[in-house]
């Protein structure tokens, strides 16, 4: 029996659990005091509701997003009607309900924005962790791959891919994620190199911890803050990216209502029907602004020293 055991049998320790406020709890409390971030969250929730309730709006108005209603949506001169009781935000040049289309477009924007961000984040974190942790030739190869990705002309690649396999939502998500993950990987790589040399990783390494354990248990929790911040800023970038691709006809299927495609349709008609341009543009602006402000807020909340 060792001395330690003897000492502790003689003197049993009574313990009550005291929970310290974790860094996440503190960050959430700081975020809640940030007015811009709270307002952004409200806007994001509203856009999310618009997306989720899109079929409900279609039901209430009786307008399908893809169906044209030439008898009610177009004036005798063939111009789209403006906002009113029937068409809440007016109709588009083909006689479709703009509001219902924008609501369905919110689905595409959020779906593409979030999926591309998740994909880019997962991929970027894995690549960045491996490159930063192992260094050497692994880092050399991966860093060069990132350089190549970052120097690709993304529109050209999108055009080629759309020509080859046809426009679709999964393809759009893939293209956006592919061109976004490199930024994430670079940030994660840099951070990982920093943490690899810290004494707390040396401490577990001297115990014989496996590289996987060090990466997942010791390094990854320290990356959650920068990754969360970057991911929250990747969402609006991806949304704009999707709108850009769709605007150019390289994104989702042209018939699918997407904010970028709706904006593209408006270019010939904004003089007679300015709502066609203004409503989707404002919606896109508000959404990306809200995500950006929320991202800034998250960054400030996670790192109060800045």
């Amino acid at each position, binding site marked *: 029996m060792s001395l330690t055991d003897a000492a502790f049998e003689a003197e049993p320790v009574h313990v009550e659990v005291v929970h310290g406020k974790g860094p996440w709890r503190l960050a959430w409390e700081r975020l809640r005091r940030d007015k811009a971030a709270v307002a952004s969250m409200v806007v994001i929730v509203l856009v999310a509701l618009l997306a989720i309730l899109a079929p409900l709006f279609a039901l209430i108005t009786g307008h399908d997003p893809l169906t044209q209603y030439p008898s009610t949506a177009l004036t005798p001169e063939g111009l789209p009607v403006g906002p009113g009781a029937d068409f809440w935000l007016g109709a588009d040049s083909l006689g479709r309900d703009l509001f219902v289309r924008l609501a369905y477009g919110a689905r595409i924007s959020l779906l593409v924005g979030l999926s591309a961000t998740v994909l880019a984040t997962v991929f970027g974190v894995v690549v960045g962790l491996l490159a930063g942790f192992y260094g050497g030739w692994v880092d050399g190869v991966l860093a060069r791959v990132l350089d190549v990705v970052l120097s690709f002309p993304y529109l050209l690649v999108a055009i080629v891919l759309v020509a080859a396999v046809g426009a679709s939502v999964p393809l759009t998500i893939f293209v956006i994620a592919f061109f976004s993950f490199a930024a994430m990987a670079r940030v994660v790589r840099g951070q990982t190199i920093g943490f690899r040399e810290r004494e707390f990783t*040396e401490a577990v390494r001297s115990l014989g911890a496996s590289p996987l354990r060090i990466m997942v248990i010791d390094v990854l929790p320290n990356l959650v803050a920068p990754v969360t911040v970057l991911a929250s800023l990747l969402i609006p970038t991806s949304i704009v990216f999707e709108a850009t691709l769709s605007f150019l006809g390289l994104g989702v299927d042209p018939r699918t209502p997407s904010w970028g495609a709706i904006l593209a349709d408006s270019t010939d008609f904004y003089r007679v029907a300015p709502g066609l341009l203004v409503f989707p543009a404002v919606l896109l602006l508000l959404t990306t602004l809200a995500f950006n402000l929320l991202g800034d807020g998250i960054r400030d909340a996670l790192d109060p020293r800045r």
Partner: protein
Amino acid sequence: MSLLEVSDVRKYFPIKSGVFFRREVGRVHAVDGVSLSVEAGETLGVVGESGCGKSTLARCMTGLYEVTSGKITFDGDMRRDVQMVFQDPYGSLNPRRRIGSIIADPLVIHREGTAASRRERVKELMALVGLNPEHYNRFPAEFSGGQRQRVGIARALALNPRLVVCDEPVSALDVSIQAQVVNLLKDLQTELGLTYVFIAHDLSVVRYVSDRVAVMYLGKIVEIAPGEELYERPRHPYTAALLSAASVADPDRPRDRVVLRGDVPSPISPPRACRFHPRCPKAQERCTVEEPLLLGDGHQWACHFPVEPGEHLRSAEPGLEGRAG
């Protein structure tokens, strides 16, 4: 057999340049031929200026660094029975993890016990190092520097190690806290029968804790002796200079200060033969051609012209001024 035997250990860090094909353009000779042994139950102090290779030596001893050449033999399982206490109480604890899980790391990595038994052990350890066991759910940021260093000590003790390598364990702490942590380490040694390698640049702390003291200069041990002997009768001129530069409790006590000229030479291309010769007040021709070996019994020094007891080293210009380069 000694608990730990270090024989002619060298650790060089390559300096690389180039983007694609990284060529080695030089080497930092951090530890360059160190031999020493650590006996069970003793405290071996290692002193030296920053950059002399003390921390590298510590990391070689714990197996964190693979040595470039030479051999380290430990009587036991190195990963388990040799543990380390780190210098920086802020950098050595993962800020995103609770201290209970940090202290349990050695147990988890070595697959010791169940989650419940590990938790009990963590609480025992926290009490042992003078922390409130109720605080195991807190984050490192909620502790002071001294308390964090106690967490680091608790982690090092989790597996009941035989050798604890302390790399400047108190140099980052306030002076008032240093004594507490040093005394804790001493008490734990008595209670648990630990062996320490205690690395520091503070001579008085090393004197207080160590049975034997080794002095390092530019990757080599220049003198090693029982503590009192080294402090009272230094034989290597570098040791004498180091001791004379240390602050003493009584400022009125008369003393000779040996002021060393120049800076520590670069460990990338250390001086030939005796590495101290460009700065040594006693250096002669021989010191530039023949490397002095660490010789002696009990009190060992590596010098051709050791300081004689009672001799006063003058803070004069180096003995080989003008010929050093």
